[in-house]
């Protein structure tokens, strides 16, 4: 007989959970009255820490557990070298607020091809709502053969343990490390190298590193350099791709072509690596995840080079426009400049990278979406004022603090790119741009196809590559079949024709033969008749003459 197992209260116990991922903060046996510890639970669990980070909470005493069978928690709460401390977790915006908000609207589809709504309406405030949404939005794009009915929903009293899956993901991602490839494009002297240094707080481009002016060559070259950045146990393999020579010649037509070729070549590399029969478990991803395009701070509008470049690259890579050396513009000028840039972009129908809407209820990380294009100031000079270090640009009339939100959008840009959306940039590159490239590349196999003027029918793009070859074979075989059948038919009919004609000829022949024979016969008959007549006549006459001759003879004698 089944006993009703009481449901849990779906309260948010994030802090407890966050404090020690492996700690089961509920009782281990089912069916207790004091089922799940709620936020009113005993105090040993510390409240969310104030800014000075408290030490990680000690392993929870068994007061939270009503059963003695809880195994010693795997709580390595002393921070391991690679482990994110509690502090960071608490400060991390995404973890803090697992309370879902109202369902996010799917981002306006601005991409030509599909952009799967990554931010599907999963984060709903109550389970029932999410169940409803689940049932509505259940898109199960599996093939028709194994289309399943809507899955059944079960709410689990949190005893099972897959609630730790996100933590497993977290750990694994740290172990795996991260990769990010960033491309900076802009004319020389716009401060790209300085900006990179500022962005990652290190001297990637050392002081003695030749600036792009010196690296300028006749044609554009693509330089890529990789470094590993470590921050609090998280490793990021960062690749910066620089394009010295862009827009520096007098004639800049097609100066974007080497960049396009480079991006495509990286996609192709990835495609080949992914399509190998024996492939590596982890494919090194060299695809460009985002392209920062530096706009010269003219204050008026976009230059035609900018427009052309962005138009050509917006469907290949995520473009984020950046106004360089923004400390040459006053606030008003900046505002107008941004407005006109965005106007130009809209007019030219350029699709920039769209930052996803923030699902965060608490809005710990503000969304700086409306600050695009970002006006940045970079600096290699670090001013130390007491304990505070700040990168600044010192003028005689004042000091520009790079990290001041009023002075520049640098913080916004950094936050948006690295802190909040780095993963999304990678995902969009992988799911959209890369798939577009792959689609174009693989479907072009069927386009080069007019052989002898026989183009194959439109390929079924929903089948895989190999079956396309099969399709082709089937089609051509059918064609050959048809051809041979036609030829057979034609042959047969011609042969028949000919035979008929011959038959006719033969008939004619026979007929002529007959007529001839008939003629001959008639002639002979006539002849016979004539002859007979003649013979008769002659005989008669001879008889007559013989008689008369005899008489004559007699008469002469007498």
């Amino acid at each position: 007989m089944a006993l009703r197992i009481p449901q849990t209260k779906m309260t948010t116990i994030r802090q407890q959970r966050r404090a020690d991922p492996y700690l089961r903060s509920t009782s281990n046996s089912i069916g207790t009255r004091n089922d799940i510890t709620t936020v009113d639970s005993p105090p040993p669990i510390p409240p969310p820490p104030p800014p000075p980070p408290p030490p990680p909470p000690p392993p929870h005493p068994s007061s939270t557990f009503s059963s003695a069978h809880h195994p010693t928690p795997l709580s390595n709460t002393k921070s391991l070298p690679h482990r994110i401390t509690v502090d960071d977790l608490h400060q991390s915006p995404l973890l803090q607020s697992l309370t879902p908000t109202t369902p996010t609207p799917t981002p306006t589809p601005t991409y030509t091809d599909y952009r799967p709504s990554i931010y599907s309406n999963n984060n709903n405030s109550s389970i029932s709502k999410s169940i409803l949404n689940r049932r509505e939005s259940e898109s199960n794009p599996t093939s028709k053969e194994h289309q399943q009915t809507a899955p059944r929903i079960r709410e689990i009293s949190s005893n099972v343990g897959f609630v730790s899956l996100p933590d497993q993901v977290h750990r694994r991602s740290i172990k795996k490390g991260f990769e990010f490839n960033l491309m900076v494009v802009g004319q020389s002297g716009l401060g790209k190298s300085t900006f990179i240094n500022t962005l990652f707080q290190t001297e990637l481009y050392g002081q003695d590193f030749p600036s792009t002016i010196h690296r300028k060559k006749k044609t554009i070259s693509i330089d890529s350099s990789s470094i590993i950045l470590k921050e609090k146990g998280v490793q990021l393999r960062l690749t910066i791709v620089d394009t010295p020579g862009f827009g520096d010649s007098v004639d800049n037509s097609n100066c974007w072509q080497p960049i396009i070729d480079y991006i495509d070549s990286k996609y192709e590399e990835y495609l080949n690596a992914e399509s190998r029969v024996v492939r590596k478990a982890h494919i090194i991803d060299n695809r460009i995840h985002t392209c920062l395009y530096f706009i010269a701070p003219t204050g008026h509008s976009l230059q035609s080079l900018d427009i052309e470049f962005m138009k050509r690259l917006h469907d290949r890579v995520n473009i984020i426009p950046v106004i360089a050396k923004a400390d040459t513009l006053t606030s008003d000028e900046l505002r107008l400049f941004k407005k006109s840039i965005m106007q130009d972009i809209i007019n030219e129908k350029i699709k920039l990278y769209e930052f996803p809407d923030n699902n965060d209820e608490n809005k710990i990380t503000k969304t700086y979406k409306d600050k695009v294009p970002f006006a940045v100031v970079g600096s290699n000079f670090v001013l130390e004022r007491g304990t505070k270090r700040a990168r600044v640009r010192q003028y005689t009339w004042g000091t520009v603090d790079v990290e001041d939100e009023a002075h520049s959008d640098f913080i916004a840009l950094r936050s948006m790119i690295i802190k909040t959306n780095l993963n999304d940039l990678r995902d969009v590159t992988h799911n959209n741009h890369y798939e577009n490239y792959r689609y174009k590349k693989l479907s072009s196999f069927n386009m080069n196809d007019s052989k002898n003027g026989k183009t194959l029918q439109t390929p079924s793009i929903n089948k895989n590559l190999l079956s396309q070859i099969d399709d082709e074979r089937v089609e051509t075989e059918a064609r050959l079949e048809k051809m041979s059948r036609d030829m057979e038919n034609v042959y047969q009919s011609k042969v028949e024709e000919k035979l008929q004609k011959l038959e006719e000829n033969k008939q004619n022949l026979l007929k002529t033969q007959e007529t001839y024979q008939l003629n001959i016969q008639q002639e002979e008959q006539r002849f016979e008749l004539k002859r007979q007549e003649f013979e008769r006549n002659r005989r008669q006459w001879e008889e007559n003459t013989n008689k008369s001759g005899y008489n004559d003879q007699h008469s002469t004698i007498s």
Partner: protein
Amino acid sequence: MKDIPYATDPILMKSQIPPIRTFELKDECGINNLPNQIMAKAISDGFVFNILCVGETACGKSSLLDSLFNTRLDSTPSTHDNTRVFLRKNTYDLFEREIRLKLTVVETAGFGDQINKDDSFKIIGDFIDEQFQYYLDEELKIKRNLSNYHDTRIHVCLYFINPTGHSLKALDILTMKHLDNKVNILPIIAKSDTISKNELQRFKQNILNELNTAGIKIYRFPTDDETLAEENSKTNNLLPLAIIGSNETVKVGNQYVRARQYPWGVVQVENENHCDFKKLRDSLIEKNMLDLIETTHSKHYEIFRRNRLTELGLTDSVDGKQVSISDTIYMKRNELRQDLDKREQQLKETFMQKVKDKEVELKEIEKQINEQLTNIKKQYKDQKDKCDEKWHILEQEMNLFEQHKRSNMETMKKNTKKK
């Protein structure tokens, strides 16, 4: 997996020329938030997990799953009269504190019930391969949608061993051998409340020995992550886990626990001394679920994919040169084209030949007919000539006769005149 070159694998880094520099950031940059981004995305996407339970009828598969996930899953007990092994699939959306897990449970029905069990494991193996095939098909599509794809590949196979107390059956060994390179196999001893502690030890030992001799590679929990290594190796030593499942609750002390009540006592499911259920649940779900998913994708699926693609004739290198997929497809297509062209040519040629032959034949006939015609004409002419000749002769005779007649008449006239 130790041998996967991760992005930041130190060996990989060192092997690059020039070696990649490492910077330790002192000031905050935001990189430390990256794992949280990934985690948030994973949470919003939801997780997918597929379990396959293989075991004889009535060995406790459904009860175990109910106990594992602490809920009532729909399952009807099957009878013993199935003629072959069926696989019953059910999908559930499980929510545990806003973490969504799409769980698919596949259970065998009728495994071990037939008299002739030859096909049993083949059916299961084919099912697993079929799921791989679906994924491979999706992956090879030209317009594909992998990020939204519902992964149905089996991540773990729980193999239920009957608690005979002695050793594995032949069917068990054959099935596990057939499946061990397709899926992660976790053998578990079902209904282990029928075995006493000592027997259990011996039983486990026997099973492990048999598995070793048969060369079956069961799934071992990973021991390369420091946080889990110890726990996992302990669990590994306890394999195969002895399990009890129950859907009933019994009051023990002041709580209701899942248990089985016997006249001689109560067997509690979650009591570590009674059975290894807790270990299974912890290791399988709480600690290593992700690893199971990963292993399925990176090991078993890759093996399947490799075999499949080689079957279809794709290779990575031709004559020692590296060949990419585009090249291979081109090659294959060209081959196919050439083949078909040749066939077309041949077809045309044979046809031409046939036509020619027939033409020759027909010409022959025509010639014959013409010959005949000329013969007939000639004949006719001859006959005509003969006829004419005869006429000619006759005419001559007639003329002669006329002459004769005339001369006769003249003489006669002369004669009468004389008189």
